Structure formats: structure tokens, C-alpha cells
């Protein structure tokens, strides 16, 4: 609870700091806020508690995911020092909105009541609609914001209807009570199943799983790159944390009902994202499709629904975030340098002139592709092991094939950086920017070498 209050207080404080209009204060304040919150979060480790009539629970599961959300946000904020260098207006508001998003994320990682789930998802989404359109003079950014809002509203309505139907059947919002209701009722009413389907749809939209992924490429591409990195990481971590919490607690005893649906969605997600990514020319769009495909892999962890799942999902989301942030970071630098050209060709010959950027980018890409000694390999490994453990062998083999397919499009980018000739020039890397990139890269490698320390947490 202290962490939740702290993040809200720092968010509000940032709004006041806007008055000074000095970035020298705004940024450090945001970082301090995140650090303080991180400290408060970590202090709750091994101290499970519940508050407000059991509406919010703090357990190791939520602490781990919250910490990983804070870490990702921290890197995004650090990168923003450079990204918003020339922007005079609204930087503090943008930071505050980021913190409010994190607030929403906290709500859904630790919810135990459906009302909190809905409230959290809304608190997570509404600042993001604004952030997506925060590049006000860019038509693409406006379009992204509007699209995200339209479709997000649609998905929220569906989720809400789902929650209502489940409430209508079980007469409770509390997860444990719903679970009891499921276990003690012989013949569950149809509206309960409908509710599950609609909730599943709402979640699939938030985590961008096919066929509810359509917004992702457009919104990711149109939004300011830094915001895309933020969306791709924080929303995904929080979304999957909540997804797994709900389906593993309330609906776990009727898994036979929803698992086939998830099964189909996984196949569809992996197929669509990987094939679509093969044909992309723009790096940003490619990363968007890659993000969809990661959602497909993560769903494997949910469908597995065994004791390996929570750790696997946590490891995967963390590894994915630590790869995504530097990838977008490098993209920001290259794009700025190449007059907003984000095609793969813009990366030609990067390794020669900017070896550091090329190495950071390759580690990130290798991690996303799941090549060993990066975190991504074990991320996929744990998820696959969890799925195999639950007997989803065909699905796992399919996912392995999809992962191999994925290697090819990441490889196109690697190829451009290392083996192609380009007129790339030396790009000056701002200090904070470079340090953040390096830290994420080192963390990715460290997680790949010592995966056990992370996986053992949950």
C-alpha cells in the first residue's frame, strides 16, 4: 500500500513541479519517485498482507511484478531525458501520466476484486491514450491516440460486460468467492461462461493477442517511440500479471472450458505476428509484431497453468522488457539521426560506425529471438517447459517452430547492422542514454547466465 501511495504522491508532485518549468528538477524527481517506490515495494517482499476488506492483496507475486514494472519505467524515464530534450511543454505532465499508468498497473497486479481489476485497467489505459497522442503536431501520433482510444473503449466495455455477467451469476466480485462459487456449483449458468469469454477478450486486447491485436501495429507505430517502449513493456507486464492472477485463481477449476479458446488464440497469434513481421520494412512496426508474438508465447504460460507458470511469465516479461527498452532506445537514436527514417535500411552499417549501439541492439534482438546466453532463451525455455509439463506438446512444438521463424526477421536487422554497407555516421550517444542502454544489456546477459536467481523468486 505504501508503494501505491508513494507513486501517486510523486505523480501529483510532478504536476506541481511543472510550474517551475525546469527539467533539471522534473526528471530527477520522477527518478527519485520511482526509486522510493521501488524501495517500498521491495520491502514488502515476504510480507504478504491484504487491505481494505481484502480488496487489495500484496504478495510476492505482486511485489515481483511491481518491481519489474518500476524497473522498466525507470529505464524509460531515463531515456526520456534525451527524448524530450528539445520539448518545452508538458514534460512533467507526461512523466506524471507515466506514473499514473504505473499506479494503474499496481492496482491490477495486486487485485483480488473484479472492481479493482476494471478500475486498474482503466487507470492504466487512460493516461496511455493521452501519452500516445502526446506528439501533438504529428498526425500519426494523433491517429494512434484516437485509434487506441476507440478500440480501447470498445475492449473496456467488453471487459466490463464480462465482469458484470460473472457478477450476475456468482453475486460476488471477490476472486476467492468466485472460485468457491465455481467449485460448489454443479451446473454453472450460461452467463457465467459468457462472462469468462468476454473477460478473456478484454485481456487479449490489452496484451495484444490475436485476433484482438489489430490496434497494436498502428498504435505502436504512430505513438512517440519512447511511449511505444513504455506501452510495450509496462502494459504487457501488468496485463499478463493480472491475466494470470485472474485465470489461475478464479477460473482455474474450469480451465477445460477456456483453455481451448486460448489454444486457438495462441496458434493464431503466433501465426499472424510472425508471418506479418517477416514482411515489414519499418523497424518500429517490426517490433510491434514481435511484441504480438511475445504475447503469444506468454499465453503458453497461462494455458500451462501449473506451478512453473508464474515464474515463467515473470521471467519472460522481465526479459522481454529488458530487451524491448534498449531496442527502442537504439531505434530512437538511429531514427533521429536519419531524419525519422525507421526502415531496416537505416540500420545498414551501424556496427562499423557505432559498435556500441550495434552490440546493444544485437543483444536485445538475440534475446527477443531466444538465442542462448541471453535472457530471452531461458524465457522461452521456461515457458516451453511449463507448457510441456502440462502436456501441451504439439502446441509447444508449434511455438518452437514459430520461434525459429522469428529468428529470421530479427536476423534481417542483424544482417543490416553487421554485414551491409551503409552511409551511417557516428551517432553521439548522450551519457544517461548510453548508461541505461548498457545496464539493460548487461542485465539481459546476466539473466541469461544466472536465470535461476530470477526464476526462483516465484
Amino acid at each position, binding site marked *: 500500500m505504501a508503494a501505491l501511495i508513494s507513486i501517486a504522491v510523486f505523480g501529483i508532485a510532478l504536476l506541481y513541479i511543472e510550474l517551475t518549468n525546469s527539467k533539471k528538477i522534473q526528471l530527477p524527481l520522477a527518478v527519485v519517485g520511482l526509486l522510493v517506490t521501488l524501495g517500498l515495494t521491495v520491502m514488502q517482499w515476504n510480507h504478504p498482507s491484504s487491505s481494505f476488506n481484502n480488496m487489495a492483496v500484496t504478495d510476492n507475486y505482486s511485489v515481483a511484478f511491481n518491481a519489474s514494472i518500476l524497473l522498466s519505467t525507470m529505464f524509460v524515464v531515463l531515456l526520456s531525458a534525451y527524448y524530450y530534450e528539445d520539448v518545452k511543454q508538458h514534460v512533467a505532465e507526461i512523466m506524471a501520466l507515466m506514473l499514473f499508468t504505473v499506479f494503474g498497473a499496481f492496482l491490477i497486479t495486486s487485485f483480488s476484486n473484479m472492481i479493482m481489476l476494471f478500475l486498474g485497467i482503466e487507470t492504466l489505459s487512460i493516461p496511455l491514450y493521452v501519452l500516445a497522442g502526446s506528439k501533438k503536431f504529428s498526425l500519426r501520433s494523433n491517429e494512434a491516440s484516437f485509434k487506441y482510444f476507440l478500440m480501447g473503449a470498445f475492449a473496456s466495455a467488453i471487459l466490463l460486460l464480462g465482469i458484470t455477467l460473472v457478477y450476475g451469476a456468482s453475486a460476488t466480485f471477490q476472486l476467492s468467492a468466485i472460485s468457491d462459487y465455481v467449485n460448489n456449483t454443479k451446473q454453472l449458468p450460461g452467463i457465467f461462461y459468457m462472462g469468462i469469454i468476454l473477460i478473456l*477478450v478484454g485481456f487479449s486486447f490489452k496484451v495484444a493477442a490475436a485476433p*484482438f491485436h489489430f490496434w497494436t501495429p498502428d498504435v505502436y507505430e504512430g505513438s512517440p517511440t519512447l511511449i511505444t517502449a513504455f506501452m510495450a513493456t509496462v502494459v504487457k507486464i501488468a496485463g499478463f500479471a493480472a491475466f494470470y492472477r485472474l485465470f489461475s485463481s478464479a477460473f482455474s477449476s474450469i480451465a477445460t472450458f477456456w483453455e481451448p479458446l486460448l489454444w486457438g488464440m495462441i496458434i493464431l497469434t503466433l501465426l499472424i505476428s510472425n508471418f506479418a513481421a517477416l514482411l515489414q520494412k519499418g523497424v518500429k512496426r517490426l517490433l510491434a509484431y514481435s511484441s504480438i508474438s511475445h504475447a503469444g508465447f506468454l499465453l503458453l504460460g497461462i494455458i500451462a497453468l501449473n506451478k512453473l507458470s508464474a515464474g515463467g511469465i515473470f521471467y519472460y516479461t522481465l526479459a522481454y522488457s529488458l530487451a524491448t527498452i534498449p531496442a527502442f532506445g537504439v531505434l530512437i537514436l538511429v531514427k533521429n539521426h536519419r531524419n525519422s527514417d525507421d526502415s531496416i535500411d537505416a540500420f545498414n552499417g551501424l556496427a562499423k560506425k557505432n559498435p556500441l549501439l550495434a552490440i546493444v541492439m544485437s543483444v536485445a534482438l538475440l534475446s527477443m529471438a531466444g538465442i542462448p546466453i541471453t535472457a530471452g532463451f531461458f524465457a522461452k525455455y521456461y515457458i516451453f*517447459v511449463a507448457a*510441456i509439463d502440462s502436456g501441451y506438446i504439439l502446441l509447444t512444438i508449434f511455438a518452437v517452430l514459430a520461434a525459429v521463424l522469428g529468428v529470421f526477421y530479427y536476423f534481417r536487422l542483424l544482417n543490416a547492422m*553487421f554485414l551491409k554497407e551503409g552511409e551511417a555516421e557516428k551517432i553521439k550517444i548522450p551519457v544517461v542514454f548510453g548508461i541505461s542502454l548498457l545496464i539493460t544489456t548487461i542485465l539481459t546477459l546476466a539473466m541469461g547466465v544466472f536465470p*535461476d536467481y530470477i526464476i526462483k523468486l516465484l
Partner: protein
Amino acid sequence: MIQKIAWMIPLFPLLGFIINSFGRKIISRNMSGIIASLMVFIPLIFAFDLFFSVTDKVTVHLFNWISAGVINIPFEFLIDPLSITMMLVVTGVGFLIHVYSIGYMGHDEHANTFFAYLNLFIFFMLLLVMGANYLILFIGWEGVGLCSYLLIGFWYKNTEYNNAARKAFVMNRIGDLGFLLGIILMLFAFGSVNFKDVFPAAGSVQSGNVTVTIITLLLMIGALGKSAQIPLYTWLPDAMAGPTPVSALIHAATMVTAGIYMIARSSILYSLAPITSGVIVVIGLATAVFAASIGLLQNDIKKVLAYSTVSQLGYMFLALGLGAYSSAMFHVTTHAFFKALLFLGAGSVMHALNNGQDIRGMGGLRKKLPITFITFLIATLAISGIPPFSGFFSKDEILAKAFASNPSLWVVGMIGALFTCFYMFRLFYLVFYGKFRGTSEQEAHVHESPLVMTIPLIVLAVLAFLGGFLNFPAIFGGKESFAEYLKPSLAGQYYGKELIPHQTELLLMASSVIILLAVIFIAWQVFVKRGTVPADETTERKGLVKLVYNKYFIDELYNSIFVKPYNFLSEKVFSWIDRVVIDGIVNSFGEISIICGRSVRKLQNGNTSFYLFVMAWAIVAMFIYLMLV
């Protein structure tokens, strides 16, 4: 003591990689070469120490790596005769090639990067051979693939090299996919991927078990890719685009033998899968003869050696398929010596000729490059299988095993050996005898390589000459000490059995030597006496010659079977779907969303309502599912 610090062995090359990549700007080229060599030399000493102190299996446990539920994978190294042998080959030959590279790459502006990559390669290769489970092996496997890819494309200004790197990458991914599926299946079948769990568990499995057969077949696909066997061999000749020391180290002596090592390591599984072994015999023998026949007419010095490597790897596969795992490992060892020597010799020749690679533009280099000449001769004799050079012993052992299994295998293998002998001596005579056929500019430039390059040649020549005595056959009163040494690591061997009568074996040896000598004589007649020089590119070739000269059009075949249909699919079909189906649907649906005004029209140009339609339909589909269950 040494066993306790064995985990440090791979760290040295990793350290070298770090130093050389971060100090890229600071360290001079020579210095970085020396550091890199040193970082391979120290593990070599360690490996020798292990060789003398370890005779059985020692597991070096580092830390608990992964524990996910029932699956427990520690980070462990396995030190046993098999891994020590490989470590000695990797670090020994690797060290010599590093030293050679100091001279060879001295003028390249990116030499530091080159040494960093080489060190990284050695690191991954050591992981591969030392790992005590399939996962570490796989990590090394992927790592060496990555290094190979980086080093093939090292001179990336040339797009052809770039394509070669890509080809190697794609072909290896196909193989790796098999390998990975094999590991997953193994995890499922045995509940573990640790050698120490899988191998004893396999002991209780009946021979011909379907699961084991499938696992071994999948692992074999991985080995086919990495060790360049039919049908995944075409990347290796193209991989010669990389710098010559890379060809010597990665594409001849070490990385390509990883597949052999992996199968030998899994020997207990393979000895339980007769079907897989049969497949391996066929593939190995076919590759051995097929690649050798292509080598007969190649004119690029490195291409000849590349096809020769493919062919020799085929012999090793033949031995693996026959269950003669120690013979395969013996050939790996001797082959590492003489093939590395051949490549380095070729590098020395190319160095002298300003990177000329076409043997039609060489000739008469015997006097100008005396050391290269003598060492190259030793290597040529070794690969051709002339006693008492190392290749004779290792190849003859494989052929004897083949004869014991089925005499017709021996006949086919012998034909391959004849081809090998012929193309090697053709190459040798064309390069070193006759008159110089290059430009006068080159002729003026020709010089023997510096000491830093010739010393590794001499050391390797000694090894190529004496290497055969490691496993001196029983027939000459030897103890087959190499096979004995490896015994604790391998299963399903022919230990203690006399396979074929000594008389027969002697007869086979004698006949093969006589035939080989005849071939050498014929080659002498054709290329030295008559001074025949292969026709140049423009000459029209006919019939079989045309077929062989063009490598049986395998590349073209692959191109038309796989690449073109794929391109056709992606260009025609997918773009058609994209244009007609998607756009068509989108256009009709998308129009709803145009509300008013131009700005809004632009805003809605994406197809939000189409997306919503799809979502609605998906929900409908889910509800239909609900009604069905």
C-alpha cells in the same frame, strides 16, 4: 587440483574476447594477436594437464543453473577422455591458427575485431565440448554458429560474402531446429538433458526403441547441418568467403566436427538406434564420394579444400554409423592436423600471390615457397592416405571397419579415397610444379611467408606426419592407445574384437596403397609431364564434366526447389492476398468509418472499424464454441 579449476578453461578466451573488443582502439594489431593467442595457449596447457591427470569421468559442478519444477539442469562441465581430446584439438590447432593469423591478418584494418571474434569462437567451442548436458552443448553450438556467421561475413564489403554468411546461417538454422526438437523430445522422454541422467537411463532402453530412434534422427539433423553433410552441405564451400585462418579453424578443424563430437558423445543413444545408424552410414558414404567427385574439377584452391572437408566429414559419419566412434574421433583428430595445415598452406600461397585463389593462375611455386611446399606435401600425403602419414591410419581404420560390415561399403569408400588422392595431387602439382601462370606483377611479388606463419605450418606438418601413431593399429604391433583412451566415454564399440583377419586387413592396406600410388603417378603424368591446365571459364564443357564442374547443379537445384517457390509464394501469393483480399475487405469495411471532413478522413484512413468487425466476429466465434461445448 587442476580438475577443480577446469571451469576456468573457457574463461580465458572469453577474457581475450572482452579485452580485444573493448580495447579495439587502444591495442595495436600485433598486440591483440598476441593476447588472443595467449588466451588460447593457457587453456591448451590446462588441457594437457587434464590429459595427464584424468582418465575417467570428472564432473565439475559450477552452480545450479536452472531448476524449474522437476527439471533440474546444473551448469556443469564434463571432463572425460572424449572432451579432453576435443579440448586438445580445439586449443592446440586453435593456438597455431591464432599465431598464424598474426601474420596473415596483420595488414587488415579490422584485425582486432577479427581476433576478438576468434577468441569468442574458441570460448563457445570449449563450452560445446565441455558441457555436461545438452543445453550447454546447444549454447556452444549456437555460439559457434554465430561466430562462424560473423567471420564468414568478416569482409562485409563484398555482397557475395554477405550472401555466403546468410546461406550458412539459414542452413544451420534448419539443422538446429532438428537439434532443438530432439532436445525437447529427450527432455520429455528421459525427464532430463544431463548426460549423467540420460545415458544411464538409455541403458535400460531396448534397442530399436521408437522414441530413441526419433531423438537420434532429430539430433542427427542438427549434426548434418553443422557438419555439412548431404543435403545440408552447400553452405560450407560458400563459407570459404571468410578469411583463410577462419576456414582452417572453423570450417575444417573444429566447428564442423562438432556434429561428429555430438554423435560420439551420444554414442549410447545411437548404438540403440540401428535405423538411425543405417541412415548415417548411407549419408556419410554418399557425402564422402559425392563431395570428392565435385572436388575433382574445382579450380579455386579453397573450394577444392572445402569439398575435401565435406568428403572427409563424410568418412567420419560413415565411421559413426558403423558404430566405430573412436575411429571417427581419431579421424577428427588427424583431419584437424592435416586439413588445418592444407588451409594454412593455401593461405600462405594466397598471401604470396596477393590473394589469388585460382590454381590455373599458379604453378612452379616449389622453389619460391620451400617451407609451404614441403609442409603442403606432407599434408597432401596425409590426406591421400599414404603410409606412414597420419591420414593413412585413420582412414584405413574406417575403411577396415566398413569392410567388416559390408565389403561393398569398402569398395565405395575406396573410390572416394581415390578421388581424394587424385584431386589433392592435381591441386598440389598445379600449384607447385610447372611454370608460373600468373601475372608478372604477382611473380615479382611472390615471397615466402614470415616466420610467424611458417612456424605453425611446420608444427602442424609434424603433427600431420606423426599423428597416426596415436592409434598405432594392432596389426603392426600397436596398442590402439587412442581407442583405449577414449573407451570410458564411448559405448557400443568394437573393443577387444578382431573384426577381420589380419591377413585380409594387410591385403586391403596393400591394395589401397598400390592403387593410390598409381593414382599419384597418373596425376604426375597428366599435370606435370604433360603440363595440362584446366580449361578456363569460357570453355564449353560437355556431359559429365559439365555436371561435375558445376557441382551437380545442386545449388541451382535448391534454388529452384526451395528458394524460387518461396519467393514466388511471398511475392505472388502473399502480395495477392494482401492486395486483393485484405485491401478489398478493408476498403469496403473501412468506408463506414469515414465520418466527415478531410482531416477526419485522414485520421480514419486506418481501418479501425474493420478491426472492430474482426473483434466482433471473433467474439461471435467464441460464443458459438460456448454453445457447442
